[in-house]
């Protein structure tokens, strides 16, 4: 398949998935009632549409983040979830509530910076411990994720009695795209656009780093600094996402692989634009299932995990075949 075809299919699937998304939830709203006045219009236009937009944009951001991490670290099993970036961000975001209870105002001003700080620390620890080895990095990521998830769980246990309005544990560990404002949508759109444009523009340079650090250095690219810059950008994006909707896993891992398999091409020039486009419908569909297609609502990572498990098995199997 050509990249253009995959991108077109992704875009064409967004309108029907959005309609599905808008009708799904605690209350079923048939599409012919979308424009009716009354409570339906409030649910559809003020709650579900901003959530649908957020789901599509977050899917795109996570997919591009995963693709960039996999390419730059030559590791097919990396994304902001596996690397611990998201768990670190969740802990940082939770910490902001703690500071709020301690009487520090303007909670929203430092929630994202705190989430960013811990997202960056978590990613840096994972990648430093992994030292470029595929499996060591994954194991380090699991350890770092567990550590921050445990800290989040403990922190939440302490906080939930003091701050009743704090989101529940399932939000922090598995993500709920429930209440997102149009203002947050605008911020997510800016990040999604900036990340996709920068990554597409840098794709040829990323490919060179994917082939050889030495060849990149001859071209005056410093691979370690370059990777660090991207990890910082990805940590910042993840921080904003996690502070709004909690930890959403596996989209960043799975989507680039689907793109790679469909295009039969793992180059950044092919995978990054395809991932940016495909991430949107994948998370839109996953979240439509999570928010009520099953008849009840579940955290979105529970759904993306189910989609992703076969992809991970396929990647490991393909890797084994290549080693022979």
């Amino acid at each position, binding site marked *: 398949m050509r990249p253009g075809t995959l991108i077109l299919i992704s875009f064409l699937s967004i309108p029907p998935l959005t309609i599905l998304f808008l009708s799904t939830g605690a209350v079923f709203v048939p599409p012919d009632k979308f424009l009716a006045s009354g409570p339906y219009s409030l649910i559809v236009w003020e709650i579900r549409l901003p959530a649908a937009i957020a789901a599509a944009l977050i899917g795109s951001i996570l997919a591009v983040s995963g693709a960039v991490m996999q390419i730059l670290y030559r590791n097919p099993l990396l994304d902001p979830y596996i690397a611990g970036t998201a768990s670190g961000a969740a802990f940082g975001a939770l910490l902001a509530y703690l500071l709020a209870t301690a009487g520090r105002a303007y909670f929203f001003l430092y929630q994202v910076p705190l989430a960013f700080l811990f997202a960056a620390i978590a990613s840096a620890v994972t990648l430093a411990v992994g030292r470029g080895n595929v499996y060591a990095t994954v194991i380090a990521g699991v350890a770092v994720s567990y550590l921050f998830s445990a800290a989040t769980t403990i922190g939440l246990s302490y906080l939930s009695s003091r701050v009743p309005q704090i989101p529940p544990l399932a939000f922090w560990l598995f993500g709920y795209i429930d209440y997102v404002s149009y203002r947050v949508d605008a911020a997510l759109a800016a990040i999604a656009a900036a990340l996709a444009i920068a990554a597409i523009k840098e794709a*040829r340079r990323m490919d060179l780093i994917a082939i050889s650090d030495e060849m990149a250095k001859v071209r005056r690219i410093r691979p370690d600094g370059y990777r660090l810059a991207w990890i910082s950008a990805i940590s910042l994006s993840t921080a904003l996402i996690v502070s709004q909707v909690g930890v959403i896993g596996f989209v960043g891992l799975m989507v680039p692989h689907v793109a790679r398999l469909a295009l039969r091409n793992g180059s950044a020039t092919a995978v990054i634009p395809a991932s940016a486009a495909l991430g949107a419908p994948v998370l839109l569909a996953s979240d439509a299932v999570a928010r009520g297609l099953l008849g009840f609502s579940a955290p979105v990572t529970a759904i993306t995990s189910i989609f992703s498990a076969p992809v991970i098995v396929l990647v490991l199997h393909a890797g084994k075949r290549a080693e022979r």
Partner: protein
Amino acid sequence: MQVRGLSVRLGGSYVLEDVSFDIVEGLNLVLGPNGAGKTTLLRTIAGIYKPVKGRVDVRGEVGYMPAEFADAYMPVMDVLLAGGRRSPGRYLAWLKAVGLEGFENRIFSELSTGQKRLVLLAKALAEGELVLLDEPTANLDPAHKALIMGVLQRVKKLKTLVVATHDLDLVNIADNVILLKGGSAIQMRPEELNEKVLSAAYGIPILVVEADGRKLFLPRYDV
């Protein structure tokens, strides 16, 4: 082009000390035992390492083929265009020149080791007037080695090549030899590379036998 008084320090100790030699047109062979600084020398010429002393005078752009590279799952064309330096037409012309015409849509990771090297050689040739090659003939079967050597022999008339290697067979197609040992360098003509010089450089007896119009290098393993 030349290297003068070059000293390079890595991790606190000198890897190269006061190294001087000329880079001639054609194929310049960098020889020396493991750890002698061959790769360090290539990287310094390429500008990856900054020397603490001395200078490297090269004209034009530098192309570089590393000894090791990742098994990138992407078409050969994307490998060639990685880094985005030259036009596709120029890369395709060099792909043809190394004998891989029509390979641009093949998946790089699915090629043989020799073919992958040829692709990276074509890339380096398209990108530089001075082309640095690190171990281009290592771990190849005789047919693929002959293929790479044939390409090097042809392209050395068009580009200046600097080849770091343990493969003494390359002496037969070299125009200039730089022998590294203990951080310093001796420059000589290929025909000056006799048993005495080689045995001293590598620390074991190496016989040089003339056969079929070329030199064969036979290290003794039973010493």
